[in-house]
């Protein structure tokens, strides 16, 4: 039995094909999100990789920002539910999931049975999303991928404390102008994102295992800062970006079984 999970984000489209609700036989990430041909490209890519045809799929679930306009799915489910399912599949002991995406941040709380019992999404005025990292990286003329290495090399991380992103940008620029070490600045930026989201997490209550999901989970600078802020080990999967699609594929499997 094959099920397909499609996660259409604001900037990326992800697909996962699951065999019998257990094994991932193919996945795809395309850097084009909702409103583009990204979802379609991703779907075609994952089918090709798996060697299957659309008709071989028993059920398709779509999730993410662009889920309501996607026509190839049998059902749509929110990305929170899907991230919970996806992370749980990889870390059965996961009880708190922190998902920092491009546009927003979410914290999910699961019970012993792995069922989501509470969730929180970021307030509008929070500088704690992937977007913030993108903006800062651009100001510092770095690639997003460089942030982790630079943060790790920091000797005296600076503090970027503004709640407002506009003010935070101004803080970063002032620090640059003052000649602060780039590494220290990057570490500060990562800490700033971690701190914003950590406060969301504290509101819901931290229960271990704590796992990070979503694109930003791959950024060790943010992960380490988060771990420090919360005082717990943070788990994540190298396929963190695929957790939503994985969860959707699992949900699809649950629908037909």
């Amino acid at each position: 039995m094959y099920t397909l999970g499609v996660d259409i984000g604001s900037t990326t489209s992800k697909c996962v094909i699951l065999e019998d609700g257990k094994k991932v036989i193919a996945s795809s990430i395309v850097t084009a999100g909702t409103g583009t041909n990204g979802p379609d490209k991703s779907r075609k890519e994952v089918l090709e990789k798996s060697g299957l045809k659309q008709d071989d799929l028993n059920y398709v679930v779509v999730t993410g920002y662009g889920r309501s306009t996607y026509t190839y799915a049998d059902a749509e489910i929110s990305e929170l539910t899907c991230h919970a399912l996806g992370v749980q599949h990889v870390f059965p002991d996961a009880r708190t999931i922190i998902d920092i995406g491009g546009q927003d941040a979410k914290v999910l709380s699961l019970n012993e049975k792995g069922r989501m019992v509470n969730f929180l999404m970021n307030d509008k005025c929070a500088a704690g999303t992937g977007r913030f990292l993108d903006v800062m990286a651009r100001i510092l003329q770095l690639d997003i991928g460089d942030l982790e290495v630079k943060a790790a090399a920091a000797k005296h991380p600076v503090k970027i404390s503004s709640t407002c992103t506009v003010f935070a940008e101004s803080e970063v620029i002032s620090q640059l102008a003052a000649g602060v070490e780039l590494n220290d600045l990057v570490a500060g930026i990562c800490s700033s994102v971690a701190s914003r989201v950590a406060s969301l997490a504290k509101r819901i209550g931290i229960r271990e295992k704590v796992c990070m999901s979503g694109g930003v989970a791959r950024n060790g600078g943010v992960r380490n800062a988060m771990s420090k802020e919360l005082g717990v080990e943070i788990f994540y999967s190298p396929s963190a970006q695929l957790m939503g699609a994985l969860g959707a594929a699992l949900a699809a499997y649950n629908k037909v079984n």
Partner: protein
Amino acid sequence: MDVLNKLLAEFHDIAENPDKQLQSYLSEGKKVVLCAPVYTPEEIVHSMGIVPMGAWGADIEIKEAKKYFPAFICSIMQSILELGITGKYKGVSAILIPSLCDSLKCLGQNWKYAVKDIPFIPMTYPQNRASEAGKKFTRAGYERVIKDLEKATGASFSEESLWNSIRVYNTHNAAMRKLSDLLVEYPQINASQRSDIFKSAYFMKKEEHTELVNKFVRALRESSKGKDKKIKIVTSGILADSRNLLNILDDNNMQVVGDDIADESRQYRVDTDTKSEKSSLDALSAKFSDMGNCSVLYDADKKRADYIVNLAKNTGANGVIIFMTKFCDPEEFDCVFVRKALDSADIPSTVIEVDRQMANYEQAKTAIQTFKEMLS
């Protein structure tokens, strides 16, 4: 069914077109006075032959009001001022604004300079409202409102007329309570339609609205109870009237079985006692003493938290959605205790941030959908 749909269409039309209502009353030669959130002595306005109309703002872009309000004042205040500045309230004789929260105080002060052609009438309510001294102070506030209304409209006040209006409002309160209870058994009436019925009350004379509501209740009773099993929700917050938000509730198969919304059921919980006081003005003052369970009504015991828990239990709700108006600090303070009480009672709840300038409902959509998935 046809009668029902006709009435729903009528409620909808009134709710969506307050301006049409305003023009209609003005063309009849009636005077209209705006009543700002959260509570005002509408009965007094009504008793003087003036039509009270609710001014709770609108879902519009804020431009002119930014000259007066910094960004962190709630969008209800901002949009009320915006509507005033841009002439949308032209023709009304005055605006009645209570000082129940810090931002309302600011609305009143700014109004004097931002909308010079519509007089501002302050209503100063006591927070220590239950004591004799509190009642007296409420009465003093009402007397001042009467004086200002007389000046602004030329109308005059009489104790006898106020008794009549009190009865009209008590009747309306009862009708709205009955309606809210009845709707629990008719899930086919969706969230948008329920909202229309409540919202339209602000743009009509209360006796006219009561008549419509009674017609609706009769028609509803004649139709069969809905068979759809929807997810039962209690809503809480200042406002929940955004069409986009209500559509999301409907899309997620949710039914509003009760509400703790400021411009909905909070207005109809307490009637004026028509037996204990000799003077109608004293009776109306006493009504305010009896009010509570609201973020702008002082209560050191925070009974509101338990009130919401009981509301959820009594209506058989599966969960509570708190529509948090951004920048509303009274609600923000209460939210902590409300959620704690709901958690203790094992009633699931979630908070959705809303404001009148929302262009993007994606986060609300995801959160409400997730909440539904959690409850299923």
